[in-house]
């Protein structure tokens, strides 16, 4: 699911690596957000990517479900009034201890993680109270600009 790292994509025939899937899924999420459609499914070789738009959310809050990677996630949808917290740099995400988890109630504004870019810590803050409704990343995962990290239900 990471855009890089050890399992870096090699050129393959018709079969996408997780890295490529993640990149494409993010690209498709943008297209879906612009299109006004509720659901987008792309099949390419052995891989199928399905995206469903969460009801009444911002473009960034489109839920990404990678059927080939983890079929269970397809059913997940961020709830109403979910706010997506995204990375604004390219780097490695580090979760603060105790690590943020789904269902967790956050109080006030706190630094829940940081993204490390060339040794620099770029803090990721919760920006107010709310319930963590989804965590899209794991500690140590590479993320790109604009990549959703968590959704917080206010």
């Amino acid at each position, binding site marked *: 699911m990471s*855009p*890089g*790292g*050890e399992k*870096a*994509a*090699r*050129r393959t025939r018709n079969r996408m690596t997780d*890295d*490529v899937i993640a*990149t494409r899924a*993010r*690209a498709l999420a*943008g*297209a879906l957000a612009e299109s006004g459609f509720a659901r987008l499914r792309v099949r390419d070789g052995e891989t199928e990517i399905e995206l469903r738009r969460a009801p009444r959310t911002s473009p960034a809050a489109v839920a990404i479900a990678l059927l080939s990677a983890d079929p269970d996630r397809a059913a997940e949808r961020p709830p109403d009034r979910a706010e997506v917290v995204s990375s604004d*740099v*390219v*780097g*490695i995400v580090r979760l603060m201890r105790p690590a943020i988890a789904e269902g967790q109630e956050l109080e006030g504004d706190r630094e829940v993680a940081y993204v490390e*870019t*060339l040794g*620099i810590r770029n803090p990721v803050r919760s920006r107010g109270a709310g319930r963590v409704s989804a965590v899209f990343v794991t500690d140590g995962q*590479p993320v*790109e*600009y*604009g*990549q959703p990290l968590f959704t917080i239900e206010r």
Partner: protein
Amino acid sequence: MFKKVLIANRGEIALRINRACHELGIATVAIFSDADRQSLHVRHADEAFCVGPGPVARSYLNIPNIISAALISGCDAIHPGYGFLAENARFAEIAADHGLTFIGPKPSVIAAMGDKATAKRIMHEAGVPTTPGSDIVASADEALAVAEKIGFPVLLKATAGGGGKGMRGVATAAELPTAFATAQAEAEASFKDGRMYVEKLLVNPRHIEVQVIADEHGGVAHLGERDCSVQKPSHQKLIEEASAPALDPNLRDRLHAVAVKATRAVGYTNAGTLEFLVAGDDFYFMEMNTRIQVEHPVTELIYGVDLVKEQIRIAAGEPLGFTQDDLHPHGHAIEVRVNAEDPDNNFSPAAGTLTTVVFPGGPGIRVDTHVYGGAVVPPFYDSLLAKIVAVGRSRESAILRMERALGETRIEGVKTTVEFCREVLANEEFRAGGIGVGWLPAFLTRRAAVVS
């Protein structure tokens, strides 16, 4: 050889580099801005990272995000293409600091050639002819003194200049102070560097440049010259050719020899271009571009060399795969830049959605492009949509081939330079060969007069 290369660019040159990497069996990582999410350069790469929003300062010039993407994805090298960070010595240094090979010359060489006054001094010392003029002048008064010594007309140039910015031609002493002030202000605004110098202004010279290539083991070769004299009033190139037409063979040989000598003198490695102004039997060093150029395909087509692959091989420490004696040009090549611009309105750039895109094909035609039917041209970047390149056994056959290729081309949705370039190709003076850089601006003036 590298295992994975990050391509720190967008558009057709990103695709060009991607092709070279794949043909060498190297995996690729693209970077893209939010505005380029649907671009072909993203689609064709093995991996891709969004590095920022549309504006270039936050994406394609975002050094930390770009270097970080290279490290995260396990790249061992970065190809900068042209523009953006291609001639940014600091970027090359940062890449090296992080263990990434920068595919280009050494940072010190980039820095020296990037400062135009320094480059001119170095070249002068190496015995390369340079236009009469000054080192950096501190004020308009100092510039005036130089101008009166070398004689008017003169050119005021910003040492950090490029793309015509920070540059003014001055015909008389009276005009100089105002011209100096505006050019300097422009340079400060554009490059945060207001240092200026003065040069003799040549009247309608030809722009002829020599492609050089050098490995890290002392191997140096030239791949002939290109004629890039068809320039818009903004000094941007529009049509390029290799070889230069109507060029005295003796002058050609001298240009080639000087280029090789200069390349050795500055300790240059990788692919580079020495730009000269040619006036009569004389030529003068203008600048050295320490990167691959937009118009490199015309050279590739007549020499049968893949310059981008050679860049990568050289950066990986390989020696040149050829010597000067192996290099022989065959035929003549011509390139037309298909820009999203309105030639009837000062080439003002256009953005929008390309509703129809049909490119030409068949014998002797090469198309380098990142656009397709339905593609969006974002407002943030330069207006180059495609390069159409024609090669033929003679200049005439290459031009005829280009005419039929442009006739096959259909791009709808934004205005382009296609039909305008057909007009230029049909012009008798252009056909005769040997026009100077003042020709196209004069052609535009005549054309506007006819229309109105």
